[in-house]
C-alpha cells in the first residue's frame, strides 16, 4: 500500500522512479523474487532487486559458501546465476505482470560484459531500473572491484549511462577509505542514484583444520554486525550528494529502516533478513507504517535526512 489505513503516505519518489514504499529487497538475498511468493505478497514491496546477472551463466564458487559470525553472515556465492538469456526467457516473463518495481542487479567480469548485459536487457520489457553492481567482493582476488577507485567507478558508470535507456543505481562498496569520493565519482558520471553498502570483505578461519571456512577464502560480511558502519557511510554520502541514496546493511526491522532514512536514505534494501524471515521485507514496511502512525508522521519521505547532528 502507498497509503496506510490510518492515512500515512509511504510512497517515495526517487525522481526517476516512484515507489509504493521505500522498502526494496537486496540483490542476492531475494533470488529472482519468485522464490518468495509463497511467503509474502511481492506487490506489498516498494520493489525488489533480483540476483546479480552476468551476461553468461556462471558457476559460482566452491562450497562452503556461507558461514555465520556474531550477528553476521559471510557469503562467497561468487554470483552463480543463469545469465541474461535464460533470465529474459524464463524469469522476466513471470515478473512482468507484477505491480512492483523490478530492478536488475547488473554484473560483469569486465566493463564490456557490464555493457553487454545492459544492452541486452535494454531490449527487454518489465525492468524499472538497473542496479550497477560494481562492488561484489567475491569475484576477483581479494575483493577487487571497480567500486574501490573513483576513476574506475567514473569510467564504468559513464559508459553504462551512455548506453542505458533505463535509470542506473550504482551500488557502492564499503571497503574504501572515502566512500564519499567514490559516490561523487558515480554522481559526476551521471548515475541516477547510489546504493550502499555491499558486503565487507571478511575472513573466517576453522581452527581445527587451519583452513578458511569458505571455499573462496574471503567472503562478504552482511547482517546486523555491519549496520553501524553502513549507517555512517549512508549519512556521509547522503549529506553530500544530490542524487538519492538507497541505504542498506543489517536492516532487520522497521526501526532499522527508519534509522537509515533519518541518516539520509531515500529508500532502503532488506538483505540478509530475508533469510531469517522470508517475509521480513513486508514486516519492515508494516513496522515502518505503524511507527509513522504512532508518531504523527504524515509522509515517511518527510523524515529522510532529518538527523540532527548539532
Amino acid at each position, binding site marked *: 500500500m502507498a497509503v496506510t489505513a490510518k492515512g500515512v503516505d509511504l510512497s517515495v519518489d526517487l525522481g526517476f522512479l516512484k515507489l509504493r514504499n521505500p522498502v526494496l529487497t537486496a540483490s542476492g538475498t531475494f533470488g529472482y523474487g519468485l*522464490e518468495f511468493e509463497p511467503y509474502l505478497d511481492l506487490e506489498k514491496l516498494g520493489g525488489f532487486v533480483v540476483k546479480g546477472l552476468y551476461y553468461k551463466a556462471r558457476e559460482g564458487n566452491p562450497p562452503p*559458501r556461507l558461514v555465520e559470525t556474531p550477528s553476521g553472515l559471510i557469503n562467497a556465492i561468487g554470483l*552463480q*546465476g543463469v545469465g541474461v538469456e535464460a533470465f529474459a526467457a524464463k524469469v522476466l516473463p513471470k515478473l512482468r505482470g507484477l505491480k512492483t518495481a523490478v530492478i536488475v542487479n547488473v554484473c560483469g567480469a569486465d566493463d564490456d560484459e557490464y555493457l553487454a548485459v545492459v544492452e541486452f536487457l535494454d531490449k527487454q520489457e518489465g525492468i524499472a531500473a538497473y542496479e550497477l553492481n560494481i562492488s561484489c567482493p567475491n569475484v576477483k582476488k581479494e575483493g577487487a572491484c571497480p567500486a574501490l577507485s573513483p576513476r574506475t567507478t567514473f569510467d564504468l558508470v559513464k559508459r553504462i549511462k551512455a548506453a542505458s535507456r533505463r535509470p542506473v543505481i550504482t551500488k557502492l562498496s564499503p571497503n574504501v577509505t572515502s566512500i564519499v569520493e567514490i559516490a561523487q565519482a558515480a554522481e559526476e558520471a551521471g548515475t541516477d542514484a547510489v546504493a550502499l553498502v555491499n558486503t565487507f570483505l571478511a575472513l573466517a578461519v576453522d581452527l581445527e583444520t587451519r583452513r578458511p571456512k569458505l571455499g573462496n577464502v574471503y567472503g562478504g560480511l552482511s547482517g546486523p554486525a555491519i549496520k553501524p558502519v553502513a549507517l555512517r557511510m549512508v549519512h556521509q554520502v547522503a549529506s553530500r550528494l544530490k542524487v538519492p541514496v538507497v541505504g542498506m546493511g543489517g536492516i532487520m526491522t522497521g526501526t532499522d529502516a527508519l534509522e537509515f532514512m533519518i541518516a539520509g536514505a531515500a529508500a532502503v534494501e532488506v538483505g540478509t533478513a530475508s533469510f*531469517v524471515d522470508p517475509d521480513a521485507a513486508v514486516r519492515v514496511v508494516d513496522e515502518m507504517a505503524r511507527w509513522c502512525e504512532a508518531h504523527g508522521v504524515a509522509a515517511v519521505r518527510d523524515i529522510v535526512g532529518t538527523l540532527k547532528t548539532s
Partner: protein
Amino acid sequence: MPIERDARLREVQSWGDFFRFAIDAPALGSGAKPGQFVMVKVSEGTVPLLRRPLGIHDAGPGGIELFFKVAGQGTELLARKKPGDRLDIIGPLGKGFTVGATPRGQRAFLVGGGRGIAPLFFLARELVKAGARPVVFYGGRTVADIPLRDRFEKAGFELLASTDDGSFGFAGFVTELAGRELAKEKPAAVYACGPDPMMKALAAVTSKHGVPAELSLESVMGCGVGACWGCVHRIRNGSGDGWVKICEEGPVFPGERVIWP
C-alpha cells in the same frame, strides 16, 4: 510451504546429545513428504543469525516430529526448549524421497548414520503404507549414537544396527552391513542419509550392484528456499556437472548423480 510462527513443542525425548521433538503444527504436518525438511528459528536474537535445517522425522495431520543431535550453538539453543514453548518453523521444504521407487511387496533398504536416521522413520512408515517392505540399517560410532533402535522396533520395522566400535550389533560401518545384505538379495531401492563418507561408500556399493539409491545430502543453508545459492553440492546434470541447490532440487538426489569431492 507456510511459516508456522506458532508451532508448539508438545513432547521432548532425549538421549545424551540426541533429542526428539514432537511439535503441534497442523499446517506443517499435513502436506509433508518423507525426506523433506524444515527451517527452524533457534534464537530470538541475532546469534546465531540463521535458521537451522532439520529433516522431518515424522509427520501427521497434527504436526511434525524432529530428531536432532546437538552439533553446535544453534542445536544447543534448540535443545533447551521445553514442552509448551513456541517454535517458529518454515516448511515442509525441498523434494523428498521417491516412495514409489519401491514397488508393492518389494524390499527397500533404509541406511541411516547417526543423526542421519532422522528422516528415515517417516520414510519407513510411508513405504509400509505403500505396501513396500523397508529394512532399516542404523549405524553409529558407538551404541550411544543409535538411540532410536527401540522406536523403530516398537513401530514394527525390521532393523539391523551397527557400531564402529562393536558396542552394539554388527561391528563395523553400516555401509558394510548394508552391503552384505545387499549382496545376498538386492532390494528394489536404497534410501540413505548420513555423513558424507558413509554416503560416498554406499553410493559405490549400490552402483556396483546396480541398485537405485537416493541420498539425502547436507549443507549449511542460508535461506532454505532456493534464493541464496549457499547450499550447493556438485551434481551431474544432463547438461553436465554443476553446483546444484540442495534446498530446492534436493536434499535427496539419485546416488549416481552425486559427485563427491
